[in-house]
């Protein structure tokens, strides 16, 4: 099929659009917006065609590999996992670009904006269809760079500049771990092939890596007295990269601050590009994770904890966008939890988690674009100043309700009625239940279910505070132009019906990722390598468990309704500086302060200053001693050079005489 040969165009077209827009963007229509839109639309079409082709024949993945240099290659791998990601990213990015034409219409730096967003999209696409881990890492870094550029898009604002720096530095911690993981992995692979790499074999390609999984798992290293498999080390380092990129605890601190960029950028970061990269990395290397003892469990714990941790902060934020940012962190936690549940249900976990990723992309992009629409019209994102926006902006409000229903996960279990979020989040929670039942460990489940309650609470709090009631300030405002409301409506419909329609085929499709002509992984066998016991997901949980996520979502809605709509409970008692719980949450567990004071100031700044001072003194000392010795030695040795010609002649004559005597003696001996 011909369009398979066009696969390389998927990242290339947005990259070209970046070049064109960057240099001649001012002269093109809509401040350079049109070229990226067409480029990404073309990428979307190609991705869609490839996905449809793959749907018909999931075994025949597209795999093209080109020699790059030495033992590295550049390649394209489009298997079901990559195909759905490509389609989702191009689609969401396309809608965001169309929306941006309206949203950024007043900004003078439009060409730079569109150039950077299309580069962002291009690097994310290149990340998704990498067929080797090195190319993935390069794209990964490009994504990080673009996020830095876009968060700091309004670099004149000091807060934006510092938020960009924070995002870059925080994700850098993860990136370094990822790179370390790649290095360890490569060293192990190199050892396993005894340093002999045949022509045309690229060790860092995923199929090569996966084929060595049992051997790497068998290699052990001793760390702090514990026997640790090399595979565990590598996967945990990879996961460290994902923690940074996907805003998992404790490296999530950059994500709420990333709101300093334009709202569309936030939508792009939170929905399509950037944060999903970490989840994608874990999904892509899933066979490694499942064969590594403990790694998946750690992924699950970190995910579950992040889901709850971020949700608690989401309920007290007053900034529209910040609530959504914590919501994203929380939902990413769910995705990681979903992947971690591979410990109990095997490869199906990838399908479940990626489905949540895609559905989250739809409703989170929608939430951000709605928020952007409100901010665009009203000019503030403090919820306390809003209220009653629904009367002014009916379309925005309607789509926002759809997105909120999807985020909270409303639906009826056992039927195909429900929002997208219901079909994507419930399986994760059910799997957590299964994990609890099977492994006797209920923490992931409890965390997930409490987080679901809080999710519903904070999103409806946002909805009631912003859209319902009477305006609290005189903000004016108007409904947004069509270029903004059309993407909103499309995403709104998707948020409502996407899940119900595609959930079954989607999971089946993505679950076939690891069995095809590219890789052929025996996941249960790998799970035995990693000491995981898999059970078959029978879908026969008690009725209460099936209903539980919906019940807590309704409870959350009711609490929000009572407090923020009817105002039956006076919240001023709780929402005050005197309430320590509120203070703790509002100050985000003081994590920023801890990071700043403890790590940045005490550890890095003062520590480095101290260390630098001592190193300076140490090195200076060495240098000074050497120079002192040389000066002293010169001072004493130059006394030998008396300048008196007789002394020299004595030395010469003594030397010559000794030489003569020596030669004489030597001659006599031989």
């Amino acid at each position, binding site marked *: 099929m011909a369009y398979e040969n066009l696969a390389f165009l998927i990242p290339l077209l947005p990259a070209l659009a970046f070049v064109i827009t960057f240099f001649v963007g001012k002269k093109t229509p809509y401040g350079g917006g049109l070229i990226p839109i067409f480029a990404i639309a073309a990428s979307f079409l190609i991705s869609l065609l490839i996905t449809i082709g793959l749907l018909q024949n999931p075994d025949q993945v597209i795999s093209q590999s080109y020699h790059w240099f030495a033992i590295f290659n550049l390649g394209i791998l489009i298997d079901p996992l990559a195909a759905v990601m490509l389609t989702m990213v191009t689609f969401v990015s396309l809608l965001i670009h169309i929306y941006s034409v309206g949203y950024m219409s007043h900004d003078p730096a439009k060409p730079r904006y569109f150039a950077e967003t299309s580069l962002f999209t291009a690097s994310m696409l290149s990340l998704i269809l990498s067929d080797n881990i090195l190319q993935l890492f390069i794209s990964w870094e490009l994504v990080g760079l673009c996020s830095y550029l876009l968060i700091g898009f309004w670099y004149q604002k000091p807060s934006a500049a510092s938020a960009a720096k924070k995002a870059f530095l925080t994700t850098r911690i993860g990136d370094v771990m990822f790179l370390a993981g790649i290095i360890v992995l490569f060293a192990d692979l190199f050892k396993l092939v005894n340093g002999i790499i045949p022509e045309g074999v690229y060790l860092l390609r995923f199929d090569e890596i996966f084929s060595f999984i049992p051997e790497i798992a068998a290699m052990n290293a001793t760390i702090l007295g514990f026997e640790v498999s090399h595979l565990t080390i590598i996967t945990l380092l990879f996961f460290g990269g994902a923690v940074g990129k996907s805003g998992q605890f404790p490296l999530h601190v950059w994500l709420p601050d990333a709101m300093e960029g334009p709202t569309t950028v936030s939508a792009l970061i939170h929905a399509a590009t950037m944060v999903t990269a970490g989840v994608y990395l874990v999904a892509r290397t899933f066979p490694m994770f499942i064969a590594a003892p403990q790694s998946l469990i750690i992924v699950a714990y970190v995910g579950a904890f992040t889901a709850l941790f971020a949700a608690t902060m989401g309920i007290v934020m007053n900034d529209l966008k910040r609530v959504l940012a914590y919501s994203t962190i929380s939902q990413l936690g769910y995705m990681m939890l979903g992947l971690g549940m591979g410990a109990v249900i095997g490869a199906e976990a990838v399908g479940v988690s990626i489905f949540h990723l895609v559905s989250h992309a739809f409703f989170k992009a929608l939430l951000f674009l709605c928020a952007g629409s409100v901010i665009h019209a009203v000019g503030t994102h403090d919820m306390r100043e809003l209220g009653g926006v629904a009367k002014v902006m009916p379309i925005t409000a309607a789509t926002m309700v759809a997105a909120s229903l999807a985020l909270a996960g409303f639906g009826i279990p056992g039927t195909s009625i429900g929002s997208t979020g219901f079909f994507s989040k419930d399986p994760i929670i059910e799997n957590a239940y299964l994990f609890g039942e099977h492994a006797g460990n209920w923490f992931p489940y409890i965390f997930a279910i409490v987080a679901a309650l809080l999710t519903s609470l904070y999103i409806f709090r946002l909805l009631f505070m912003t859209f319902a009631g009477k305006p609290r300030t005189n903000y004016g405002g108007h409904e947004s132009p069509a270029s903004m409301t059309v993407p909103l409506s499309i995403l709104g419909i998707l948020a409502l019906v996407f899940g119900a329609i595609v959930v079954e085929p989607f999971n089946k499709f993505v679950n076939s990722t690891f069995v095809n002509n590219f890789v052929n992984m025996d996941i249960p066998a790998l799970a035995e390598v990693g000491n995981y016991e898999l059970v078959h997901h029978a879908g026969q949980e008690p009725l209460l468990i099936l209903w539980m996520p919906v019940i807590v979502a309704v409870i959350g809605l009711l609490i929000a309704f009572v407090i923020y709509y009817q105002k039956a409970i006076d919240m001023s008692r709780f929402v005050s500086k005197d309430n320590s719980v509120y203070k703790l949450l509002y100050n985000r567990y003081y994590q920023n302060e801890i990071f700043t004071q403890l790590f940045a100031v005490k550890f890095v700044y003062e520590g480095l200053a101290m260390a630098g001072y001592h190193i300076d003194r140490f090195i200076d000392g060495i240098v000074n001693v050497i120079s002192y010795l040389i000066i002293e030695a010169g001072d004493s040795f130059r006394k030998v050079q008396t300048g008196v010609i007789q002394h020299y002649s*004595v030395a010469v004559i003594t030397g010559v005489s000794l030489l003569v005597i020596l030669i004489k003696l030597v001659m006599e001996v031989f």
Partner: protein
Amino acid sequence: MIPLNWYLALSAIIFSIGLYGFISQKNGIRILMCVELMLNAANINLVAFSSYNDDMSGQVFALFSIALAACEAAIGFAIMMSVYRMRDSINLDELNLLRW
């Protein structure tokens, strides 16, 4: 005929006297004179070997050496003259401007 050893002994004695003077004296002119002594001790050697080996090249060499010694003495004494004019002394120990 006087044996060769006698010449060599004479040469060694003269050379040693010159050497002793060169090392022990402080007066520039004496030092130059001692250098002349050593050069001429060498010349005696050259001539002696030349005559005993029936080879004229040694004597030619001695002639060169004498010419060279004359040049050296001329330059040396000229330096001593100018040093004396500047410092009112030709004691070499006092000429230590470039010393540490």
